[in-house]
């Protein structure tokens, strides 16, 4: 049987908890609460890609309201003052941080791309399999984090 290396749902939860504690829930009052897998909100999609010993993507999807809340918390601005550029910067950074921590669980060497953020839509990820996912609610809004591995690589190793 082929031994697969990669993050698990539990790893993803640990990473998310660290990120929320550091940036989005500093006072501990509004943690990301895991919920059973659900259809992710597609308002905002932010991703980073990895190439090298492991190929795939880490994707953060959330509602528009969650994205604005994240931008306000991450950038330290009032919610009413959050701009579209703030949302793009913040969600891209969120994907970068989560992706970087996922990368630390993967075989080396891997290269991490710059983040890609799409508002009101989702990038396509052809030929991938979802290896783990964290679905949650944050401030009563939907947030989903997925790790997608290139199926072409998976097929070759099985």
């Amino acid at each position, binding site marked *: 049987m082929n031994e697969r290396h990669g993050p698990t749902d539990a790893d993803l939860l640990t990473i998310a908890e660290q990120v929320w504690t550091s940036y989005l829930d500093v006072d501990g009052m509004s943690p990301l609460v895991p919920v059973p897998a659900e259809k992710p909100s597609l308002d905002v999609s932010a991703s980073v890609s990895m190439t090298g010993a492991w190929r795939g993507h880490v994707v953060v999807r959330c509602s528009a309201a969650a994205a604005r809340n994240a931008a306000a918390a991450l950038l330290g601005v009032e919610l009413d003052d959050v701009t579209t550029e703030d949302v793009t910067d913040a969600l891209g950074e969120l994907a970068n941080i989560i992706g970087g*921590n996922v990368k630390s669980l993967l075989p080396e*060497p891997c290269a991490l791309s710059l983040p890609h953020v799409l508002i009101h839509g989702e990038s396509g990820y052809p030929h991938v399999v979802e290896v783990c996912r964290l679905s949650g609610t944050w401030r009563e809004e939907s947030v989903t984090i997925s790790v997608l591995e290139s199926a072409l690589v998976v097929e070759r190793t099985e």
Partner: protein
Amino acid sequence: MDLLAADDSPPDLALVDWNMPEMNGLEFVTAVRADPKYRAMTLMMVTTEGEQSQIVRALAAGAHEYVIKPFTPDAIVEKLALLGLVPNGAVA
């Protein structure tokens, strides 16, 4: 580097990510360290990239500190205190 060159008084500290457009963090650190004008500037890598080889390369290129995201503000202040850029009393 263009932003730095346009500034008559270089900053005391630069927080540098590894993954950046145009020029990556290692290239930036190398370029800054090669220019005597920025000899006094403190460089702190602040990045998600945590491979040991990357940390070694950044420090060898001239970064003073290496912080892996996510981090707390206290962690940054603590590093700055170690570098003598803030008083020790500023550390909670």
